[in-house]
């Protein structure tokens, strides 16, 4: 069961676990702490942060999340966007 529905406003957790331990993360650093909108639920997939280290990856919901591009970089064109696959455990309500 996925926590967020299409249209939900979400924030990517402003967390940097790779600074304290070796990690395999699929959440780009440029999105940490950024707000976006859930476009759709892509399904559930084994947590890559576990399987990368040979541990069993429990299934986690994966979302396509849409972000305004300009606020991320302080440059670019109004209305341009970036759409990224983000796992549920990296998202919180915005």
């Amino acid at each position: 069961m996925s926590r967020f529905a299409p249209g939900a406003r979400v924030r990517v957790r402003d967390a940097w676990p790779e600074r304290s331990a070796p990690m395999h993360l699929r959440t780009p650093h440029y999105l940490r702490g950024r707000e976006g909108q859930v476009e759709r639920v892509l399904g559930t997939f084994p947590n890559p942060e576990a399987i990368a280290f040979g541990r069993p990856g429990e299934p986690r919901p994966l979302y396509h999340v849409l972000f305004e591009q300009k606020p991320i970089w302080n440059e670019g064109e109004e209305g341009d966007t970036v759409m990224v696959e983000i796992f549920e455990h990296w998202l919180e309500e915005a």
Partner: protein
Amino acid sequence: MAGEPTAESIALLEKLVAALKRRGIMTEEDIQARVASADRASPETGARMVARAWTDPAYRELLLRDGTAAAEAMGVRMAGAPPLGVLEDKPDLHHLVVCTLCSCYPRAVLGYPPHWYKSAAYRARAVREPRAVLAEFGTALPPGVKVRVVDSTADYRWMVLPMRPAGTEGWTEDRLATLVTRDHLVGVSLPALQGATQAA
């Protein structure tokens, strides 16, 4: 970028393959089948899917809803491949695909990625200054078209469904497929009747 394999890396590979065979994890036939499947994959597959979507509304609906099923409908073996998602370009929206974290690419329908797709420059710039990257590929979007960069970060692989060029009314699916290149399916350029944009 990877250069020629070293003697050490070849020796390591041979040991790994021998260990996998010894433990019954895979056979020489499995390896050959996978190599043949990888070698068969080429952007022509993606081009045929796009051409069919341009001519067959039911296939278009399937392609956008379930890219994996649409690829299988074209005879592509998707078992074991990541799910395929297809991004629909519209008159006011253009998609550009990148993988900033590594080099995720829809290999099942596009074959091996080009060198530039894996380069640090493309991966860093496509997400930050997509319009400058498009301009370097010779791509001028009509005014009012928004850019949507799709950063392929996790389990899906993404392909663009470009818009059908004007002036191709009445073309057959086969003829339409000849217009579509790898670069159009990644989104760095747009299909056109005149050869204004070419594969890099």
